[in-house]
């Protein structure tokens, strides 16, 4: 029995957690619920490590575990299996999902203590892990789509977790609706793949693309763009990014897990997964890269304008995912996935630490009320600073390695102008990182005492902070595309400017120097000036929300009101009520005949019989 036939165990464990907590947990104490939930994810993580060890022990070309559970549907030539497979690409995602997910589960056990929805929270969180693993492990587009929609559902449920708050339930709905736009493209892409290739299996599609050059490049490009639209929606890229900042209405660990570390990265994963398709349609790469770059610039500037710590982190997430899209758009899948892993860890850390800070400040999220936190909360501050430095890309934290690889690739692939824009994004990142750091420096800016976080909250933070340090190591050795990470991933690699090590070294050092200078200057500036100037345009994300409100929301609402007041009230209700009135009228017409005197009934019986006989005789031609 080979190891691959046990792949189902990875998604099955969190699913079991959902069932156990969902059906039996109603009367359990919080401790028991949390241990079931955290335990199921922890056990899955242990199994994932076993699978990882197995993958490592194989030869690079042979790193692939697959199994088919069940033939889901079969229609002529198109068949869809419930098939799972694990290759280095999905292994990276499984690792991020389960490692960060496990720590966030642990953190939540302490963070959500005393919430009336404790059990509901953990059921949703486990359900999310289940769907995320399904998304990642699926061996075909349709099953990926199932996981894709499943994580979307969990995201909706958890954003609106505190549903008594109107803003929270509105934000959940917004996330759901905006994702519909992307999913529409994804679904069309799947249908196109099914029509063109007659299969939705990733391996089959890659094989067909390799063997059959008869597929028109236009078709593959259309397919890739449709799937890319799905990725834009899920990964909150411009112009479908509007849901992510609002999604911060959910609990902080949810923002960390879903809207920082895992789900929003699914788009990048999808693009890497369909890399054979992208390779067959090279015209798509500039589109991906430019969407990514636009997002980087837009979102990092918007982040700079935020006062709410979580909204700032949300915009930062959008811009960092933009970097991953830039990497994929340069054909550097391994750099993109590396940044995904690094970002998953440090952004998870930042959100969790922000949650701890907000909790300590009694729910205050305004950065201007934060200051001098370093002295008050040394443990949390240390981890937050580590995360911020990684975000800015300071050596030797993970963000440095991944961002550097992406910047270098963008210079090689798209030239100087593109690189300048991408690097400008990195400098803005350093600016708002400085704004974050300022919360921990300088003087105290708030009244009252702080709530110190418990051990369960601090331990995951420390583990994640250490991981941001360790996550840079797979990015070694420098000055080559053949990093440890890239070699493990084994994705097709494009090399640009090979051998230009002097230039790369000079750029690397000067980039780092500039970033550090900007970071320090920003930290000092935001520490000293109590009221930081905030541009209205930046704070509102350049008014994209208002634009969408005008363009889509209001017309839709007007149309809905019209449908309600005219079509529904007048026509539909009129039709239904009309039928009611008609039968009432007919009823009163006949009801008078029901006198209850059976003599009348007998008379009508006799009369009817005579009439029938007379009729039949008449038609027979009698008389």
């Amino acid at each position: 029995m080979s190891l691959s036939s046990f792949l189902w165990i990875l998604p099955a464990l969190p699913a079991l957690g959902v069932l156990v907590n969902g059906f039996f947990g109603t009367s359990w104490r919080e401790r028991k619920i949390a241990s079931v939930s955290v335990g199921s994810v922890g056990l899955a993580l242990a199994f994932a490590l076993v699978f990882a060890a197995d993958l490592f022990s194989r030869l690079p070309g042979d790193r692939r575990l697959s199994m088919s559970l069940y033939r889901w549907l079969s229609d002529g030539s198109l068949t869809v299996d419930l098939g799972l497979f694990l290759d280095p690409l999905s292994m990276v995602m499984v690792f991020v999902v389960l490692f960060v997910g496990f720590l966030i589960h642990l953190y939540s056990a302490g963070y959500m203590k005393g919430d009336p929805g404790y059990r509901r929270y953990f059921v949703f969180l486990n359900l999310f892990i289940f769907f995320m693993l399904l998304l990642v492990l699926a061996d075909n587009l349709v099953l990926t789509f199932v996981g894709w929609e499943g994580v979307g559902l969990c995201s909706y449920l958890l954003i609106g977790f505190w549903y008594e708050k109107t803003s929270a339930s509105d934000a959940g709905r917004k996330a759901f609706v905006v994702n519909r736009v992307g999913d529409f493209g994804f679904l069309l892409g799947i249908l196109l793949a099914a029509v063109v290739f007659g299969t939705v299996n990733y391996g089959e599609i890659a094989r067909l693309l390799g063997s059959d050059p008869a597929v028109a490049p236009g078709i593959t490009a259309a397919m890739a763009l449709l799937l890319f639209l799905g990725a834009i929606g899920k990964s909150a890229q411009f112009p479908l990014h509007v849901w992510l900042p609002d999604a911060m209405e959910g609990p902080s660990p949810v923002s960390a897990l879903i809207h920082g570390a895992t789900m929003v990265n699914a788009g990048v994963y999808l693009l890497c997964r369909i890399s054979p398709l992208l390779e067959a349609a090279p015209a798509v790469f500039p589109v991906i890269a430019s969407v990514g770059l636009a997002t980087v610039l837009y979102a990092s500037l918007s982040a700079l304008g935020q006062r709410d710590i979580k909204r700032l982190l949300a915009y930062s997430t959008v811009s960092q995912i933009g970097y991953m899209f830039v990497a994929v758009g340069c054909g550097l899948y391994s750099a993109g996935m590396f940044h995904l892993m690094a970002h998953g860890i440090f952004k998870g850390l930042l959100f969790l630490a922000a949650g701890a800070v907000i909790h300590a400040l009694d729910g205050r999220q305004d950065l201007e009320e934060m200051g001098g936190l370093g002295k008050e909360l040394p443990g949390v501050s240390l981890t937050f600073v580590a995360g911020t430095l990684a975000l800015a890309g300071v050596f030797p934290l993970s963000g440095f390695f991944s961002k550097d690889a992406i910047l270098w690739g963008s210079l090689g692939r798209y030239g100087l102008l593109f690189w300048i824009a991408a690097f400008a994004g990195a400098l803005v990142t350093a600016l708002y990182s400085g704004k974050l750091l300022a919360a921990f420096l300088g003087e105290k800016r708030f009244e009252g005492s702080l709530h110190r976080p418990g051990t369960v909250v601090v331990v995951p933070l420390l583990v994640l902070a250490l991981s941001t340090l360790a996550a840079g190591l797979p990015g070694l050795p420098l000055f080559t595309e053949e990093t440890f990470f890239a070699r493990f991933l084994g994705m097709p690699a494009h090399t640009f400017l090979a051998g230009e090590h002097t230039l790369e070294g000079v750029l690397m050092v000067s980039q780092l120097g500039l970033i550090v200078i900007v970071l320090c200057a920003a930290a000092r500036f935001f520490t000293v000036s109590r009221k930081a100037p905030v541009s209205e345009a930046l704070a509102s994300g350049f008014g994209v929300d208002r634009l969408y409100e005008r363009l889509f929301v209001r017309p839709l609402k007007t149309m809905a009101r019209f449908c309600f007041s005219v079509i529904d009230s007048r026509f539909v209700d009129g039709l239904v009520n009309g039928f009611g009135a008609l039968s009432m009228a007919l009823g009163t017409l006949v009801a008078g005949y029901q006198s209850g005197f059976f003599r009348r009934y007998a008379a009508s019986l006799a009369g009817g019989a005579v009439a029938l006989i007379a009729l039949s005789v008449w038609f027979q031609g009698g008389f």
Partner: protein
Amino acid sequence: MSLESVMVTGIVLFIIGASGFLLRGNAIVLLLCIEVMLNAVNLILVGFARYLYGTEGQVFVFIIMTVSAAEAAVGLAIVVALVRLFGTADMTRINLLKG
């Protein structure tokens, strides 16, 4: 005896029974009227049986007689129950079937 005279007697008997049923009010009289109608049909059946030299008509007569005996038993029981309930057997004053 010709078929016509039998038929006419049967039809006249049936009309007497039917109009009695429709016009009279007492429950027992109504039951008697039903018997008259049944026997009018019986008469016609026997008349046709004799006219056609068959036996099917005679067989039906026996079946109808059996059923009418059962019906009379059930009907009388209902009449007794009605009288106990309403204190009268006048069907023109009972309209429980009114919907």
